[in-house]
C-alpha cells in the first residue's frame, strides 16, 4: 500500500534534519492557521491559485522563488559553516558527510530549478506581455499548469525534508553516485521527479512564451526590432527551454528506469554508458546556463537604458548577440567534462567554441557601458545591481575563458575554482538580474515602490558578501581543494574558508535587509505610491498601463511606432491622451480555472507515488490528470466578457488620478519623480531639444 514508505523515512536521524523538518511542518501549519484565521482561503483560491492572469501567475512564480531562495541560502550557510569548522579528520564540524552531500545536492537543485527558473519565468510572465501590448499569454491555462507543475516540483524538494532524504548525488546527479547500486534509497528519485515536474513546467512555459511573442504583439510591433530587449532575451530563452529541456527529461527518465526497473542505460558493467548520461545532462545543462542568464541580460538592458535616460546603445548588436549566444550555447556542452577522456582535438573544438561565446557576451558588456556613457545616470537600486553585475560578471567571464582552455581545466577541474566560477556567473549574472528586475517591476505589480534605503543596504551586503564568500574559493581551488568536501586535512585552508563563511554571513544580512525592505515598503506604501504607473521614467509599454495594471492590461491596445515607444510619447507630449470612447471594444479575458491547480496536485501525487513505489497512486493520479484535461476540453465558455464601457471608465479614472497628482505637466515624465523631488529627466530632455530647435 505505501510502497517502500515506512517509519524509517522520518527525519529524526540527526539534530539538523529534525530541526529542518520541524521548520517545514511548523511553517505549513502556521500558513494554514493564518489563512483560516484571516478567512483567506477563498481569496487565495479564487484570486490567485485559479487565476489565469499572466501578471498574477508571474507574481506567484516570484513568490515561490523567494521562498525557495530562503531555504537554499540556509543550506549554503550550513555548508560554509561546516567547511569553516571542518579542518581535521573524522567527524569535525556540525554536519556529517552524508548530510553535507544532501546539502550541496539540494542547494544546487533548488537554486537552479526552484529559484532562478521560477524567478525568471515569473518576470517574463509578468513583464513581457505588457511590453508587447498584449492582454495575456497565448495559452493562459497552460501557463497556469506550468506554474503548478513547478510548485509541485518544489513541493517534492520540501517534502524530502520531512519524509525520507534527498539525493546525495549532487545537483548534476551523475551515475554511479545516483545509480541503484550505490544509492538505493529514495534520494535520487526525489531529485529525478522534482526535475521532471519542473522541467515539464519549463517546456510548457517555453512554448507559451514563444507563441506569445510571435502571435500577440500589438500593432506596429511587426517590426521585431522595435521590441524591448527584454522580449528578445525572453524569446531566445524560451527557444532554449523548448529545445534543451528534452535532453534533461530523457536523461532523468533513463536514470529512473535504471534505478527502478533495472534497465542498463548508465550501468557500465551491463553494456550501459555513464558518459551518455553526462552528455545528455550537459546538452541540457549548458543551454540552461543561458536560459538563466539571458533573461537577466534583458533586465539589465531595460534597467541600464532607463536609468541612463537613454536609448540602448547598439540595440541591434544586442539582439544579434543574444541570438548568437542562444545558438552557440548548444555547441559547448563538452567543456563540462574535458577531463573525461575525449581526444585532444575534440577538447580543442569545444574549448574554442566556448571562447567564441565570450565574443557576443563582450559585445553586450560594451553596449551597456556605452549606453551609460553620456547618460544621465540615476543610481536607484535596480541600477546598482546592474553596475555591480557588469563589474563582477566580467571577473567570472575571465575565469570562464581560463577554464575553456583544456590544459588549464585539467588543473582546476572539480576544484573550488570551478565552484567560485559558476557562482560568479549565476549570482551577479542571473540572481542580481532577477533582483534588479523584481525591484524594477515591483511598483508595476503592486502600485508602490520598494523602500530605497533598505534596498541599497541589501545590495551592498549582497555584493560584498558575494566577493568575500567566493574570491577565497578561487584561491583554494588553485591550492587544489576539491569541491564538495565536508572535512579536509589541510589546516592552511581554514582561514580562507572562514573568510568565505563571513561572506555567507554578509549575504545573510543582505537577505534580512531585503525582508525588512519588503516590510517597510508595505508599511509605508502610501509614501511610496506609484500614481502614474510610470515609477522610473520608463521607456517601454508596460509603464503606460496603470500600476497595478487592470487584468486586461490596456483599455485599448497601444499602437507602436518605434523603439522605446512610451519614452518617445512622453517627449512628444502624447503619453496620456484623453481616451477616445469610440476606440474601445468589448473584450474577453480568460475565466479562472480550477483544473490547473488540481492537475498540479495530482502531478505532485504522481511523482511522490513514483518515488515511493506506490503504484496504485501513480495510476490514480495519472488517470485524474487525464480526466481533468478531458473535462477542460469539453468546456467551451472559458472566457469572461468585459464591456467596453468598463475599460473606458477605468482608463478615464486613471487619467483623472494622474491629473489630480501631477505637479508638473502631464507627459513630461515629471509627476513620477515628485516623491524624491527631482525634475523628470524627460522634461529636461525635452527642454534641451526645444532649446536646440
Amino acid at each position: 500500500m505505501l510502497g517502500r514508505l515506512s517509519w524509517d523515512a522520518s527525519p529524526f536521524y540527526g539534530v539538523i534534519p529534525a530541526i529542518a523538518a520541524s521548520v517545514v511542518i511548523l511553517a505549513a501549519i502556521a500558513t494554514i492557521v493564518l489563512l483560516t484565521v484571516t478567512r483567506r482561503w477563498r481569496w487565495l483560491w479564487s484570486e490567485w491559485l485559479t487565476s489565469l492572469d499572466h501578471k498574477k501567475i508571474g507574481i506567484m512564480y516570484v513568490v515561490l522563488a523567494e521562498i525557495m531562495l530562503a531555504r537554499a541560502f540556509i543550506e549554503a550557510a550550513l555548508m560554509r559553516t561546516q567547511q569553516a569548522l571542518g579542518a581535521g579528520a573524522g567527524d569535525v564540524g556540525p554536519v556529517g558527510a552524508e548530510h553535507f552531500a544532501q546539502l550541496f545536492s539540494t542547494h544546487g537543485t533548488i537554486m537552479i530549478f526552484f529559484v532562478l527558473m521560477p524567478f525568471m519565468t515569473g518576470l517574463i510572465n509578468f513583464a513581457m506581455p505588457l511590453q508587447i501590448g498584449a492582454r495575456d499569454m497565448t495559452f493562459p491555462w497552460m501557463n497556469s499548469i506550468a506554474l503548478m507543475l513547478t510548485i509541485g516540483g518544489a513541493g517534492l524538494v520540501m517534502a524530502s525534508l520531512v519524509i525520507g532524504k534527498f539525493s546525495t548525488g549532487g545537483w548534476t546527479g551523475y551515475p554511479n553516485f545516483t545509480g541503484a547500486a550505490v544509492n538505493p534509497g529514495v534520494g535520487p528519485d526525489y531529485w529525478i521527479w522534482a526535475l521532471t515536474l519542473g522541467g515539464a513546467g519549463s517546456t510548457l512555459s517555453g512554448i507559451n512564451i514563444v507563441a506569445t511573442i510571435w502571435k500577440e504583439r500589438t500593432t506596429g510591433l511587426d517590426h521585431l526590432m522595435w521590441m524591448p530587449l527584454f522580449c528578445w532575451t525572453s524569446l531566445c530563452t524560451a527557444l532554449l527551454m523548448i529545445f534543451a529541456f528534452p535532453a534533461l527529461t530523457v536523461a532523468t527518465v533513463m536514470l529512473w528506469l535504471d534505478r527502478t526497473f533495472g534497465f542498463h542505460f548508465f550501468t557500465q558493467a551491463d553494456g550501459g554508458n555513464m558518459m551518455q548520461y553526462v552528455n545528455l545532462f550537459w546538452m541540457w545543462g549548458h543551454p540552461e546556463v543561458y536560459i538563466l542568464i539571458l533573461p537577466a541580460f534583458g533586465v539589465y538592458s531595460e534597467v541600464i537604458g532607463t536609468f541612463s535616460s537613454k536609448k540602448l546603445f547598439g540595440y541591434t548588436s544586442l539582439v544579434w548577440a543574444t541570438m548568437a549566444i542562444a545558438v552557440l550555447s548548444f555547441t559547448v556542452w563538452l567543456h563540462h567534462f574535458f577531463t573525461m577522456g575525449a581526444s585532444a582535438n575534440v577538447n580543442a573544438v569545444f574549448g574554442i567554441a566556448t571562447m567564441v561565446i565570450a565574443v557576443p557576451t563582450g559585445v553586450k558588456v560594451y553596449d551597456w557601458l556605452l549606453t551609460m556613457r553620456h547618460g544621465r545616470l540615476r543610481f536607484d537600486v535596480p541600477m546598482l545591481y546592474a553596475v555591480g553585475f557588469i563589474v563582477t560578471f566580467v571577473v567570472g567571464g575571465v575565469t570562464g575563458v581560463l577554464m575553456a582552455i583544456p590544459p588549464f581545466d585539467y588543473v582546476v577541474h572539480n576544484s573550488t575554482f570551478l565552484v567560485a566560477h559558476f557562482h560568479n556567473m549565476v549570482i551577479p549574472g542571473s540572481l542580481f538580474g532577477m533582483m534588479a528586475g523584481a525591484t524594477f517591476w515591483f511598483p508595476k505589480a503592486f502600485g508602490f515602490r520598494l523602500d530605497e534605503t533598505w534596498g541599497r543596504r541589501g545590495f551592498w551586503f549582497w555584493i560584498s558578501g558575494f566577493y568575500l564568500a567566493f574570491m577565497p574559493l578561487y584561491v583554494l581551488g588553485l591550492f587544489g581543494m576539491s569541491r564538495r568536501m565536508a572535512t579536509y586535512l589541510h589546516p592552511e585552508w581554514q582561514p580562507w574558508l572562514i573568510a568565505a563563511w563571513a561572506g555567507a554571513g554578509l549575504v545573510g544580512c543582505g537577505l534580512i535587509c531585503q525582508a525588512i525592505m519588503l516590510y517597510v515598503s508595505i508599511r509605508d506604501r502610501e509614501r511610496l505610491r506609484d500614481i502614474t504607473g510610470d515609477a522610473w521614467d520608463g521607456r517601454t509599454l508596460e509603464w503606460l498601463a496603470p500600476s497595478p495594471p487592470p487584468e486586461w492590461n490596456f483599455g485599448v491596445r497601444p499602437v507602436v511606432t518605434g523603439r522605446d515607444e512610451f519614452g518617445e510619447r512622453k517627449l512628444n507630449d502624447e503619453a496620456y491622451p484623453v481616451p477616445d470612447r469610440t476606440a474601445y471594444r468589448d473584450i474577453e479575458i480568460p475565466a479562472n480555472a480550477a483544473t490547473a491547480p488540481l492537475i498540479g496536485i495530482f502531478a505532485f501525487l504522481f511523482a511522490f507515488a513514483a518515488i515511493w513505489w506506490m503504484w496504485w497512486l501513480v495510476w490514480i493520479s495519472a488517470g485524474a490528470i487525464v480526466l481533468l484535461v478531458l473535462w477542460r476540453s469539453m468546456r467551451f465558455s472559458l472566457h469572461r466578457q468585459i464591456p467596453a464601457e468598463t475599460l473606458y471608465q477605468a482608463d478615464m479614472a486613471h487619467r483623472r488620478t494622474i491629473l489630480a497628482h501631477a505637479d508638473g505637466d502631464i507627459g513630461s515624465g515629471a509627476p513620477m519623480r515628485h516623491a524624491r523631488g527631482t525634475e523628470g529627466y524627460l522634461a529636461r530632455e525635452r527642454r534641451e531639444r526645444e532649446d536646440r530647435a
Partner: protein
Amino acid sequence: MTDTTTDAQGVRPHAGIPLEHPDAETAHATERAVFGFWIFLMSDLVVFALLLATYAVLLRGNTGAPGPAEVIELAYAFPETLLLLTSTLTLTFASVALREDRARGVYGWTFLSLALGAGFLALEGAEIAGLIGKGHIPQVNGFLSGYWLAIGTHGLHVAIGVVWGLILIAQFWIYGFCPAIRSRLVRFSLYWHMLDVVWIAIFTVIYLPGSLVS
C-alpha cells in the same frame, strides 16, 4: 478575443490549416493553437533524436548476449511500417473531408486511421511478446534498454494518439463540427504525421542496420 480584428489584420490562415475560416477571430485562435502545437512537436522530436542517439551509443553494449542481428526482426517492422504510413494517408483524407465539411468522410477516415494505428500497436505488441519470450528484456543489457525505450516511447505516443483520436471522434459526435474541435483535428493530424516521421527514423536507425549488421 472579440477585439482581435485589429490583430488579425494581415494575418493569413496558416498554409497547413485545412479549414475554411468563417471569421477572423476563429482564424486567429486556430492559428495560435496550431503554432503552439508545432513548437511542442519540435520539442518532442528532440526527445526522439536523443533516444535514437542513445540507442546508437549503446548498440554494442550487448555484453555477450544476442546483439541487434539476432534480436531485431524485419518481419514485424515491415507490416508495421505499412500500417502506419497508410494511416497517415487516410488521416489526410479525413482532413480533406473536414475542409469540405463531409461529416461521414471525417468520421470514416479518422476511424480508419485509428484502426490502422491500433493494428500497428497490435503488431508491436506481438513483437514485444516475442522478445519477452526469448528473454530479450531491457534488464539484460544496455543495447536492449536503448531498443525498448526508443520503440516503447514511439509506441506509447501511438497509443496516446489512438485514445486522443477516439475522444475527438466522440467530441465531433457530441458537439458537432464547431471551430474548437476542428482545430483539434488539425493538431491531432500534425501529431499523427510526426509519429510517422519518427517511425521512419526508427526504421532507418534501428531496424535496417540492426537486421543487416551483426
